[in-house]
């Protein structure tokens, strides 16, 4: 976490009175904090820690749920599948998002602000709505199949969703803004004179890009990739609606355990695994980028 900056001002040294007042105020600050903290502890920290405990008790202390998870190949496959899908989605987002961020960063701001709407509007639209839109487009009687059938290009509808293809189309669509925005914000800050200098020194455009621009843009790439990967790991709505029977991600598996099999202890153990994984990757992200970046474009 980036430290919250304590703002110092030139008046501080002068007015000692204000300083002592501040010391007395320390308690007041804690009093102010008590209301929101109490709320967060009751409805957030307490439920999560209860879930953590639940994963270790049945009813006595046990590792049963964890052993159960790691001893069954089918369960491990769900975890592996989640990882594979998240990595693929991240790479797809990077390959689509990097050129777009590059274009947005190199156009004059009047034009790029306009094009930015195309990135930000999907970003602000509910995930369910976007997933529904893809169901309308990719479905058996969806727009693409209607179009292809009408033009006689195919004789029977193509299977475009309820498979991995559908999940990737939907997930990449939802996560792409999370890739474009961090890369864009880094690229905008790159000093264009560096590229000119390299060009003047005789480097051709490809060399300038590979040896100057690309390395400077890597922090954005790292941030975008970690962000997309973390969010993809916990995805639930899109893979449940667009995926097939075999494209199960860990969130969907947890939901089934809770709502259909009523296997709460086991679900809690899987949730704890997902939480630990997410926090590990996130602490890595946070060390380099800071959580403010996640909503940085809002400011």
């Amino acid at each position, binding site marked *: 976490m980036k430290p919250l900056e304590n703002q110092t001002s030139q008046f501080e040294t002068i*007015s000692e009175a204000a300083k002592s007042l501040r010391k007395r105020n320390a308690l007041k600050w804690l009093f102010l904090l008590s209301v929101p903290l109490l709320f967060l502890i009751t409805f957030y920290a307490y*439920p999560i820690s209860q879930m953590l405990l639940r994963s270790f008790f049945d009813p006595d202390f046990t590792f049963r749920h964890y052993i159960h998870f790691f001893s069954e190949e089918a369960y491990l496959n769900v975890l592996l599948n989640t990882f594979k899908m998240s990595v693929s989605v991240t790479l797809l987002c990077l390959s689509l998002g990097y050129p777009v961020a590059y274009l947005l960063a190199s156009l004059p701001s009047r034009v790029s602000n306009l094009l930015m709407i195309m990135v930000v509007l999907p970003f602000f639209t509910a995930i369910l709505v976007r997933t529904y839109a893809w169901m309308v487009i990719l479905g058996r009687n969806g*727009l693409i199949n209607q179009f292809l059938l009408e033009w006689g290009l195919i004789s029977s509808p193509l299977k475009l969703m309820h498979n991995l293809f559908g999940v990737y189309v939907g997930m990449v669509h939802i996560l792409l803004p999370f890739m474009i925005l961090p890369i864009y914000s880094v690229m905008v800050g790159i000093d264009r004179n560096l590229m000119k200098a390299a060009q003047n020194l005789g480097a051709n455009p490809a060399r300038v890009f590979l040896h100057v621009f690309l390395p400077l843009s890597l922090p954005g790439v790292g941030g975008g990739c970690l962000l997309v990967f973390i969010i993809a790991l916990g995805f639930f709505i899109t893979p449940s609606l667009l995926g097939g029977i075999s494209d199960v991600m860990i969130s969907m598996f947890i939901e089934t355990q809770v709502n259909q099999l009523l296997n709460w202890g086991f679900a*809690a153990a899987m949730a704890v695994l997902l939480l630990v994984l997410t926090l590990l990757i996130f602490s890595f992200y946070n060390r380099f980028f800071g959580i403010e970046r996640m*909503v940085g474009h809002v*400011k």
Partner: protein
Amino acid sequence: MRRLIPPHRTSRPFTDRIPSYLLYLFCGLVFFYLIMPILIVIPMSFSSARFLKFPPPGFSLQWYKNYLMSRDWMEATYVSLKVASATTLISTFLGTLLAFALVRGRFPGKNLIYSFAVSPMIVPLIILAIAIYFFYSELKLVGTLLGMTAAHTILATPFVLVIVSSNLKGFDETLERAALSLGASPFKTFLWVTLPIIKPGVISGAFFAFITSFDELVIAIFIAGTHAVTLPKRMWDGIRLEIDPTISAVSSIFIGLSVLLMVFTEFLRRRRKT
């Protein structure tokens, strides 16, 4: 697309420009991919066909009428509006309080508290959802507006906190000190000096809180029960049964809302600049 080409490029030989044409083409396709699904839902919602057909054979408001006439769609809308409004009020209050104490206050453990308060942003929703579901099952809070509001407030508060604290960091603290030294009480100082300056941040945080609650589905799937079915939960139930074009109409309303949010944040950003 031609207009987008920066002028200095036009003097170069054509072969030099091929990579940038390729870039424009590629990005054009990506933009199409990003925006097309959202735009396509809107004409579908005005379709006169009984099932999804593109282009729509004729104009009709039947699906909007269907939505407005249906009791359970309307009920879900009321639930969503109530929950989102309550969430907005509470999380804006809590988030602003947190931001103020964490940016202005001097006490140990500030960064820890900040990390804790923003962490719901990164914890996967499914984890929050089942943890709250287990908790609510014991308290009999499943299927209540109170429970739904509390859960959404946890999700929405971090947005308010992050936006308001970035706003607070950006303004001159000496203004507050001036008010204090002139004899205003800390509360008065906050109300008459701090609040007017950070108002844009608070408003945009509130807007984010509203949309966070209004769009939220994963938690609702678990804790909606039968009496706190929100609009996204109602859509989710509908989508799984059949693709009912009424959902297109509801989706268009959601899209309208997100356009509003986008225009609004852009407006705030521009005003800040000037």
